[in-house]
């Protein structure tokens, strides 16, 4: 599994129109898109954490769970969309760099899918009965587990994303 597979694909992607331009001839591109990625993360992860803390029964106890879920969702979605687009553009500009980053693969193939699976599982099982515990300061056990897992998994996604910047677990290749 290491070095990772699909090297040719990532090398090919680095020759696509725009990729080389962003990588070599747009000096302010990286800092700008990284900043957009971080600011949209503040919106997405910030509001997800607030929702998770309510599910854990430790914050916003006067607000019904369904209100927090429904009313914060459009803003979490907005954050997620901007975060995904900026992340994809960052990847598009330096595919071979990210191909050679162990933390990038762990973030994308393990942490992110687990965080999404937890979210979907909660939404389609435990959350269906929300009307029965909507105003309870302490939601049922399954909801508290989903909230706790969500914090752990999304923070893991954040940490692996940030660790990509360091030179640990990295294959350095010069492709231009």
């Amino acid at each position, binding site marked *: 599994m290491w070095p990772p597979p699909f090297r040719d694909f990532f090398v090919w992607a680095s020759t696509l129109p725009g990729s080389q331009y962003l990588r070599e001839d747009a000096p*302010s591109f*990286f*800092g700008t898109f*990284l*900043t957009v990625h*971080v*600011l949209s*993360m*503040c*919106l997405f*992860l*910030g*509001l*997800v*954490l*607030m929702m998770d*803390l309510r599910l854990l029964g430790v*914050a*916003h*106890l*006067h*607000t019904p769970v369904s*209100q*927090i879920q429904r*009313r*914060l969702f459009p*803003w979490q979605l907005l954050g997620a969309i901007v975060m995904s687009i900026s992340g994809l553009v960052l990847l598009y500009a330096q595919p071979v760099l990210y191909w050679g980053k162990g933390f990038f693969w762990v973030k994308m193939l393990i942490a992110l899918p687990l965080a999404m699976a937890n979210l979907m599982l909660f939404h389609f099982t435990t959350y269906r009965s929300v009307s029965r515990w909507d105003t309870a300061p302490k939601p049922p056990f399954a909801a508290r587990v989903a909230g706790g897992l969500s914090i752990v998994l999304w*923070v893991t996604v*954040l*940490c692996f994303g*940030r*660790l990509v910047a*360091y030179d640990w677990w990295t294959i350095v290749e010069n492709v231009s």
Partner: protein
Amino acid sequence: MLLSFFRWMEGLAVYRSSIYLGPGVNLVHLVSMCTFMGALLMVDLRLLGAGLTTQPVRSVARGAQPWLIGGFIGLVVTGIPAMMATATMQYASKVFWFKMYVLAAALLLTFTVRWKLTRQEDSIRNQPLAKAVALLSIVLWMTVAAGGRLIMYL
């Protein structure tokens, strides 16, 4: 004078004990930032007439407050050593000072006008003022976050 203070801070080499200290402090800084921003934005959105509109502003603000304060403490406790480790670079960086000035303005807004507005009954609040303050709060704190990210790139 100020420069020698920054040189002294860098000389302390706060990260010398482990190569994991710098990245670790950085990760805690980011998690604190997300906690802080979540607590900030849900109240600012409410002041703007979005988000948790079925709840009184006071109730949303009271629920968010411990996480706003806690997140901020986490940011300061991790931000100071991160700055000390590269103090002379920070001193020379225009973006660092810009971030500090905007931070001062953001703190002033948050703990004066915004503090008062979020503790009022909904019926007596000056709505245009509340919206202006919420918008300014979002812009100032997002600028602080962007400044922190851009110190390395500008």
